């Protein structure tokens, strides 16, 4: 089974999914992300799905679960780069992904997360560690 690499940049974790994931790979990614959010006290998670040409209900649920889990751990998730054909298909599939923040590309997604990084309380909290 493949393992999707997770990069750490400041208080953010960045994942760019470049392979068509089987269900096991998707679950591993979700678990790895959750573990790394805790370990690095991450405040933001950026998931780039621009290379994914299919998102079915399993991968959609993995994205939603990851965002929900991150939220409980006090981190924000942004999913970036969803292809228009994937977005159209997800609507017809019946998956809304309502709870997930999205951005057009990595740059816009990082802007969203940088906003979180700039919150002064977070900067203070971080200095104590």
């Amino acid at each position, binding site marked *: 089974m493949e393992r999707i690499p997770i990069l750490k940049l400041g208080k953010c974790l960045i994942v760019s999914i470049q392979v068509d994931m089987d269900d096991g790979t998707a679950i591993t990614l979700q678990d790895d992300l959750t573990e790394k959010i805790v370990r690095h006290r991450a405040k933001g998670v950026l998931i780039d799905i621009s290379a994914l*040409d*299919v998102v079915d209900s*399993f991968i959609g649920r993995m994205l939603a679960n990851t965002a929900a889990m991150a939220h409980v751990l006090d981190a924000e998730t942004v999913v970036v780069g969803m292809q228009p*054909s994937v977005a159209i298909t997800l609507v017809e*599939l019946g*998956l809304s992904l309502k709870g997930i923040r999205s951005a057009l590309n990595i740059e816009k997604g990082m802007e969203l997360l940088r906003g979180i990084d700039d919150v002064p309380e977070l900067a203070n909290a971080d200095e104590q560690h």
Partner: protein
Amino acid sequence: MQTSSTEVVQVGGGGDVVRVRHAVRKAAIDLGFSLVEQTKIVTAASELARNMVDYGGGGTTTIESLLDGNRKGLRLIFKDDGPGIADVQQALRDGFTTGSGMGLGLGGARRLSNEFEIDSAPGKGTRIAITRWKGIV
């Protein structure tokens, strides 16, 4: 109606769901499906192939490229010899699951296809055939 090509993919585990997606994508591209049409049929295929793995004990996906006059289409048949479905109408309802899924696979696959047939009964396995025609929304 003519079937111009047929391919059978054995589906036993999660990795095979990815193989079904790739094989269906290729057939859809060969027929000249638009990107949205490709994505819809591949997504439907992914749902139905996963169901065979999760509930049907594995099965086969048959990919048929169809020529009907000047219509071109893709028919996919998912067949397993698993336990079958007792109440098909209930299984088709969005949100219904006996597993841990979202209950969107069957209903979603039906919406993403132009034609949808399901044949299932307890002890008889499950056969689902879906068709998408090129150029039909």
